[in-house]
């Protein structure tokens, strides 16, 4: 079998004109078909190859290599294939193992580099949130965004990763992830409902594995993105110590639990295989898992912590509290958009085989939705208020990106633009409802950007998924492509809505109960005196801008 695979691979390489293929190859048994049909060529040329055949393959001579290789034609040849037994020379085992490594290696590189891009989104969040806060809270807001990275990572390393991904195996893109092999499940309505994984605490034992490390890094930076959403909503009045405790718990338990249900082989992911609901809950890159989890937790925090002093008059009329630096805000939006090219395309967890070349489509969908969101949001504000508000245009840009995150791997470019256009208006409407009707003070608009539009993104998968994606022929264990209501599968929409109900009904409740307990035993909010003075000196011991002259604020408006 191995020899047959190798023969097919070599025949394909012959067609591709690689250095290996330039050596004598077995004659094809039949005339080659058209170039547009490479598979029959490979099949017709299939012939068992032996170690002896490989000995006839020669690479470039040392003297030729010494002259340099400006055309790149003699670099990367048979000479570069490592041999396990130098006396025996190149053997079939060496060749097959090298092919295997060369399938996994680009997946590792792709996933790691896109993970690095997602990590850089922390910088974007930090300056967006700090720019939208007042100067007197700049140090405090920046420090929350800085330390949420480490605090979240600590909780996730201790137990969060194990809960989320401890039962995710197998994953073919990253070499199998065999050590992540235990999911705790209960039997309900005649089916298994996966609840949480158990393998990978402290990344110890068998999870000291190269593939697991890639998965940990990528999932960790996603988790941190969710955590930093909450700091934006609760900025300018959140006790720093309470923020540490709240974020640690969120990174260790709240985020990983929903992450398991959606991405770790939990019950939401298996709604398709178990109950025939499309392909189960589908969230390509995390509109729900990352953004909505952050958004509904931010909503819980906004209710518990209450609005800033001066945000509402005694009659309940909201007052605008402008941020101190709009240039930071819009620069942060661009940094976030840059990082989103890691967030969405990276969520294939690979660049080679298994339909992963769709990364180009995912990237284009991402940029289109962001553009569409910024346009519709800007024009909404322009028409409604007479000016193209900069901060809301930035938020609309992010809303488009948030909304396309779940469907980016399943929809076409036209649908991406529609999803983004709706998101841009939706974020403006949601901000108005949150501020005026619910009377909740969300400093950066995170509930609307990430919560509302995260949910819209989850729903849009169930509407717009066009059935054209093909990730190794199946998704969530259900053969075929993810297909939404507009393309014929109503069951997919039901699965998506169950995910929405879980976010609003369960994740919100979990977050609320924990943070309400923390409020009772520790206290989330600083004193009114500290809030009026600004949190920089009382909480952090230093001003963000020591040379600024800060304005005195009245206790009431």
């Amino acid at each position, binding site marked *: 079998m191995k020899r047959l695979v190798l023969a097919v691979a070599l025949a394909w390489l012959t067609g591709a004109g690689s250095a290996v293929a330039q050596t004598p190859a077995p004659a094809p048994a039949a005339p080659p078909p058209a170039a547009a049909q490479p598979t029959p060529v490979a099949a017709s040329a299939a012939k068992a190859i032996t170690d002896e055949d490989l000995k006839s393959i020669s690479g470039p001579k040392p003297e030729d290599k010494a002259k340099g290789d400006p055309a790149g034609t003699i670099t990367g040849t048979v000479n570069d294939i490592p041999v396990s037994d130098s006396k025996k020379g190149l053997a079939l085992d060496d060749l097959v193992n090298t092919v295997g490594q060369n399938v996994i290696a680009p997946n590792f590189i792709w996933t790691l580099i896109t993970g690095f891009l997602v990590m850089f989104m922390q910088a974007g969040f930090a300056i967006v949130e700090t720019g939208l806060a007042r100067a007197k809270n700049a140090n405090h807001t920046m420090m929350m965004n800085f330390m949420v990275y480490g605090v979240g990572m600590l909780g996730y390393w201790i137990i969060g990763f194990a809960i989320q991904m401890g039962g995710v195996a197998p994953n073919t893109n990253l070499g199998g992830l065999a050590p992540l092999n235990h999911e705790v499940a209960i039997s309900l*309505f005649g089916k298994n409902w996966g609840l949480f994984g158990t393998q990978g605490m402290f990344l110890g034992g068998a999870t000291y594995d190269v593939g697991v490390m890639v998965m940990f890094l990528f999932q960790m930076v996603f988790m941190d993105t969710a955590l930093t959403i909450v700091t934006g909503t609760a900025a300018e009045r959140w006790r720093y110590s309470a923020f540490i405790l709240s974020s640690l718990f969120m990174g260790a338990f709240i985020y990983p639990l929903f992450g398991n249900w959606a991405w770790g082989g939990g019950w939401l992911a298996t709604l398709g295989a178990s109950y025939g609901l499309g392909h189960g809950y589908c969230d390509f890159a995390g509109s729900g898992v990352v953004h909505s989890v952050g958004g509904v937790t931010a909503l819980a925090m906004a209710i518990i912590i209450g*609005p800033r002093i001066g945000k509402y008059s005694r009659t309940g009329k909201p007052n605008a509290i402008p941020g101190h630096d709009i240039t930071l805000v819009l620069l942060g939006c661009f940094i976030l958009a840059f990082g989103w090219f890691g967030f969405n395309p990276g969520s294939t967890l690979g660049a080679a085989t298994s339909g992963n070349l769709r990364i180009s489509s995912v990237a284009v969908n991402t940029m289109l939705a962001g553009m569409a969101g910024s346009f519709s949001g800007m024009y909404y504000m322009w028409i409604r208020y007479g000016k193209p508000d900069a901060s809301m245009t930035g938020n609309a840009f992010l809303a488009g990106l948030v909304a396309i995150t779940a469907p980016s791997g399943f929809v076409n470019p036209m649908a991406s633009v529609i999803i983004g256009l709706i998101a841009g208006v939706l974020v403006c409407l949601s901000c108005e409802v949150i501020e005026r009707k619910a*009377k909740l003070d969300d400093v950066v608009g995170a509930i609307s950007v990430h919560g509302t539009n995260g949910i819209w993104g989850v729903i849009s998968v169930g509407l717009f998924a066009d059935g054209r994606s093909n990730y190794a022929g199946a998704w969530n264990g259900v053969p075929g492509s993810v297909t939404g209501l507009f393309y014929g599968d109503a069951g997919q929409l039901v699965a998506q809505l169950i995910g929405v109900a879980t976010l609003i*009904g369960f994740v919100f409740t979990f977050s*609320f109960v924990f943070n309400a307990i923390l409020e009772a035993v520790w206290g989330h909010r600083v004193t009114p005196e500290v809030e009026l003075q600004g949190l920089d000196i009382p909480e952090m011991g230093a001003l963000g801008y020591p040379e600024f002259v800060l304005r005195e604020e009245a206790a009431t408006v």
Partner: protein
Amino acid sequence: MAFVGIVVTLAGFLVAAGSVGFAAANGVRLVIVLLGIALSLGGIFGILNPAYQKDAVWKH
């Protein structure tokens, strides 16, 4: 009232998640799930948030 709000919110989730066991037809499941979502939203914005707003800082 805050406790009632959180219970209603959680109940919405249980109704929606239970839809797969209560019904086999996707149309029926869809209706049940939408009811569950409405219940949860009602719990948050109709009960829980007003309970917290009673003592809001801006009313003092």
